[in-house]
């Protein structure tokens, strides 16, 4: 086994352990935002997509890598923005609701 593979494997196992440890008891309300937050993180595949794009020399490769870059960016940008929108609802609401209610209703 090459030393690189061994060290990649070490990194892989450690990252899995971090992943297991990092999610503790979460209130159910946070499940969807947490899923969405994790979903954004795998947008890191954009880094890999950029590598294959810069190395693409023939048309098939260029097309594949264009789609890969676009997909990955969509994952990253959309993922973080939508997660942030979900999490806005945990902002502390202004506490005096009566006033606004009367104004509206």
């Amino acid at each position, binding site marked *: 086994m*090459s030393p690189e593979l061994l060290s990649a494997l070490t*990194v892989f*196992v450690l*990252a*899995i352990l*971090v*992943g*297991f440890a*990092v999610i*503790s008891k979460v209130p*159910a*309300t*946070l*499940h*969807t*935002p947490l*899923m969405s*937050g*994790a*979903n954004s*993180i*795998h*947008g*890191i*595949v*954009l*880094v*890999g*997509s*950029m*590598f*294959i*794009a810069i190395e693409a020399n023939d048309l*098939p490769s*260029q097309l*594949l890598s264009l789609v*890969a*870059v*676009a997909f*990955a*960016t*969509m*994952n*990253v940008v*959309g*993922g973080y*923005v*939508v*997660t*942030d*929108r*979900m*999490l*806005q*609802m*945990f902002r502390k*609401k202004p506490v005096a*609701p*009566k006033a606004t209610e009367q104004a509206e*209703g």
Partner: protein
Amino acid sequence: MDFSTISDIVRLTWLAGAACFVIGLMRMNSPATARNGNLLSAGGMAVAIAATAILLFARPTVDGGVNGTGWAIIVVGILVGGGAGLYTARTVKMTAMPQLVSLFNAAGGGAAALIAIDDYLGLKAAPDPQINVATVLDIVIGSITFTGSLIAAGKLQGLIAGKPIMIPAGRIVTVALAVITVLGAVFLWAGNLSVPVMLLILAAALVFGVTMVLPIGGADMPVVISLLNSFTGTAVAMAGFVLGNDVLIIAGALVGASGAILTKLMADAMNRSVMNIMIGGFGGGEGTQTAAGGAGGTVRAIGADDVAIQLAYAQHVIVVPGYGLAVAQAQHAVRELAELLEERGVDVKYAIHPVAGRMPGHMNVLLAEANVPYPQLKEMDDINPEFERCDVALVVGANDVTNPAARRPGSPVSGMPILDVDKAHSIVVIKRSMGRGYAGIDNELYTNPKTGMLFADAKDGLAALTAAVKAL
């Protein structure tokens, strides 16, 4: 600065980015720090991507010049993908977010698979066995995630029927696809370099993603999406092995593992096992409301005017919103009624069951969107002791989460914590019929002598109540 220094710095930056992902996820475990955690994670991502661009730019090319086409692909791809992501994420309605997450997940899985496909097409000779293993796994997992997530999104969006779709001989097809994939993978792992076999695997995995998700009921989709999210993480980690890139391995494995835990937590919260869901047990969800006609016990129907009087002269009212309120889009109607009651001096609270509706946090999202004041939303454990002191419990389109059968063993909902609605002095239930809920069982709450049934669509029923209270 020479290239090797730049390369070192970039690698350290990637590591810092990965650390941001981890710390961000940690912070997302608690409501107070969640938003901040997501921003930290996004910051780590931005830094990691910028570092990559610098590395690619500084990298010596074969002819010494700048690779114009490569950069054009990157820039165009980022603009198109980023624009699409930004636009949809900004404009989507709160209630449609899960399907959007699923779409983004499909995109990520697709990108991971494309990396491996591109790598495979460029091969001149069979690669090292380890790389080969990673490549094939990446193609398979990435493709399953891609089509599976698209189907899941389609189901949630209503483009594909939510109820379980049984493909003729579905199980056999699914198993056959799995066998083809595994045999092909083993053939390639044995050291054979064959593009056709790779394409065969690719096709089988893509179809497998479809046949895996189609038979699962729409109500189970949040769990399925979470599982597919974990798959994408794994595929990205495999892409990391293919490219020899640590940051992909770390981030991918992180999501793979934390996504798996999260999937389990989500399934636990709705009293299901992941296995059970994937095999497609019950979970017809929205398809089953025409069942039964009120088996056992008599049911007392009640009119809007009667309910209005009860509500207007009550001191404490607890509203219990459920899936039916979400389907009927009655969140604004319920807020109006509550405001009207509050003006008359009634104390109104909302009892939020963690799995009311069809996705975790469904009710919080809906009611927050309708501007219900946050302090009025009470979590299950906080509100349960208050039911015995409340004059009227107004159940709007909720069923399973109020079913006292959950306290006894032997029913599909046994063991699920429920809202103690039956402890209230008087109970009013708004729903269209005696139809069943997600779990497909009768609710003995409806035959409780204290309960009056207001048979109506949630939105119409609430509007009628508001009108009746105003007329008092």
